[in-house]
């Protein structure tokens, strides 16, 4: 008789969990992928490959121009045209990926590690430490991010790495706040209480339940921050505080193209479109990582 509801439940269960218990095979997973998401992964993969092995994608030198080839419109030999020094724009964009992407990666990693660390500590320890950390977070949040990163740049000086650090530090407060609220939410759940109730110690419950459940949404937000870090780093590059010329960093490319805005539209348009595509893709992928809390 005790198996009745198991049987009975199995009639209802298919509506609740699709393919429950079975792992989805990779081909099936790809076929189920919404087209927009598949495209986003593709964009990110290409950008990643540009950063890792740019020479696979172009034979032009990104730093040395070819005489007589200045300001060529996009055509078959120069996919995205050339700049005022005759350098191939496509090659410059491909070689620039490494600067923009590592910058964004360093920034996110910095914010994620420091911010999440602070947030997890604040969420799991005594009231007084929690209060102190969260007050600090309030203060960091009160300074507009761009001004904060500009202040840090003044302190550290210009450059790719310094720009990345400046951007990363501005996201520490956001990560800390999110991580703390997630830890607090999970700590209040019945299953954490149940884990203590069945004899769990503070560290075992933290390790088995609190961290895995609270860090999922933190990681989803990290992916979202990757997109915004690409934007912020290109902004700093555009303002001239990032990598120095002739580095083909994407923001700097756009800044250089500005001088030819009336004659060579492709110099500003193409790198901007690339930035938009990468950021869109990163945001789309982060969305798919689960429900992103506000």
């Amino acid at each position, binding site marked *: *008789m*005790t*198996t*009745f*509801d*198991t049987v*009975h*439940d*199995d*009639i*209802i*269960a298919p*509506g*609740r*969990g699709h393919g*429950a*218990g079975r792992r989805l095979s990779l081909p099936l997973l790809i076929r189920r992928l919404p087209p927009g998401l598949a495209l986003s992964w593709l964009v990110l993969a290409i950008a990643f490959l540009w950063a890792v092995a740019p020479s696979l994608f172009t034979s032009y030198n990104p730093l040395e121009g070819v005489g007589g080839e200045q300001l060529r419109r996009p055509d078959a030999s120069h996919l995205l045209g050339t700049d005022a020094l005759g350098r191939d724009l496509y090659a410059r964009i491909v070689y620039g990926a490494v600067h923009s992407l590592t910058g964004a990666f360093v920034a996110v990693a910095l914010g994620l590690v420091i911010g999440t660390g602070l947030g997890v500590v604040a969420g799991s320890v005594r009231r007084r430490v929690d209060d102190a950390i969260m007050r600090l977070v309030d203060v960091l949040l009160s300074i507009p991010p761009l001004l904060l990163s500009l202040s840090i740049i003044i302190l550290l000086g210009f450059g790719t790495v310094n720009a990345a650090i400046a951007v990363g530090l501005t996201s520490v407060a956001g990560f800390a706040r999110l991580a703390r609220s997630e830890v607090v939410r999970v700590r209040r*759940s*019945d*299953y954490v*209480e*149940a*884990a*203590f*109730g*069945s*004899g*769990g*110690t503070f560290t*075992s419950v933290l390790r*088995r*339940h609190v961290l*895995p*459940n609270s860090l999922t949404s933190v990681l989803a937000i990290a992916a979202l921050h990757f997109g915004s870090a690409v934007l912020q780093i290109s902004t700093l590059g555009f303002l001239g505080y990032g990598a120095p010329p002739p580095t083909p960093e994407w923001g700097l490319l756009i800044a250089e193209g500005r001088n030819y805005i009336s004659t060579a539209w492709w110099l500003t348009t193409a790198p901007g479109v690339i930035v938009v595509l990468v950021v869109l893709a990163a945001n789309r992928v982060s969305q798919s990582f689960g429900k992103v809390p506000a």
Partner: protein
Amino acid sequence: MNSSITPYPPVLEIENLSISYNDGVAHRRVVHDVSFRIEPGEVVALVGESGSGKTTTAQSIIGLLSANGRIEGGNIKLNGTDISRWSDRQLDTVRGAKISLVPQDPASSLNPVKTIGAQVGEILRIHGAASGRDVEPQVISLLERVGLSEPALRARQYPHELSGGMRQRVLIAIAIALKPQLIIADEPTSALDVTVQKRILDLIDELRTEYGTSVLLVTHDLGVAADRADRLVVLQGGRIQELGATKVVLAAPRSAYTRQLIVDAPSFSAVARKAPATAREKPVPSDDDVVIVEGLVQDFVRSDGDGKSFRAVDGLSFRVRRGTTHSIVGESGSGKTTTIRAIVGFQKPTAGSIEIDGTDLSQLRGETLRQFRRKIQLVYQNPYGSLDPRQAVFDIVAEPLLNFGRLARPAREEKVRAILNRVGLPEAALSRRPHALSGGQRQRVAIARALVLDPDVVVLDEAVSALDVTVQARILDLLDELQRDLGLTYLFVSHDLAVVRQISDTISVLKDGRLVDGGTVEDVFERPGSDYTRELINAIPGQKRAALV
């Protein structure tokens, strides 16, 4: 009652209704060929468990299926006119005026930022029944009609200033404002305490008689349906299992499913599910009290910051004998949850003592408290929240063993398998995550986790309240079986007196943190010691049927 020979057309006639939802991949049909009718002034109950399609059917009548739902076929005739394919614009003239709705959850069914008066007056304005200065007096008389004290004050208040029962009265006032022909009451009382539930159902009955309105009562509770409905429509998996006059269906159910429902409905079985502790094979020694609570007091500091404290439990004492089931009964705010949280050691009592199997809880701290937890285990109300969504069933059940680390890996695995088998879970469930299990299966996992440490006492906090009756009945069977085989002591917390009556040996009735009644099941139910207990017992639904059969 002989509605079939009245010359009027039925208020509502549903013919071969089929409804499907688009789940993103395909249209999945959830209501199949449902047909029934409601005559003028009649109460028809749509009875079913979760997933039966009862709410979907009700929503389709009033044209409020969610965006991914669609009517696949069939007709919905209101006074003989098919409205199933009407546009929103056409339906707007019917909704509120001819068909109205009493929703399920009064807490979230009123707009939090508008006054009660504005929300009741709104239905009059929409249909042009009143405007300008005429609205307010009508609103106040409606609020008075549904039994709200100080109606003029209530009209100026916001929903959060009213209790759940009061809010449901407001929603009923909205539903009857334009004297509709049909009221759809979708689980109108399932979110309310039992005594409030009875008063609300009485009010709906009274208004129906007064206005001659028909009622479609959607409910999971066969007891409520039996008390209130002229006819029953029993749904399962989107199909009608049985349809007929209430008396006939209850007395001579034709479908196996209806029979199962009647057997499992706790409010129908006056007899105890289990044998009393004294009549079992291994009689319980009469002086072995495993739980002793003396003068328990629990104060909380109010959260609104004025520093005053509020007493949740006030001088509670009771004892539980080894191997028996003691139930703590009360409505929301009675202090029953607070009491058990103190007993399992999650909070320190303000005063009084708790002794579990000879251990005084007040002496325990840190490691000794952790070791103590082996003796007493808690099963939560909500099996969706009490299992870590990222753990597989095996890991959930093995975790307590890891915490006390006494078993080697093979022995541990064997023990987990044995206990899962014991609670009736198939081997295949071992590797599943909680989301892939049904509610009943999850609660079995939670019970297995509680039992794996071989505790003396298991505390069940509304542990079957969230489950469908047929599932609930199986879990209760399982608990009974485990108690007999393992000699467990249960501390069972519930608001549902029908269930409590079936499974308890002794009972404590709590009201506002105080013990108002206590003793053996027979004592409390046959000779209640307080008016409150009597009111609680009278509020148990399904008593009309008990009188009939």
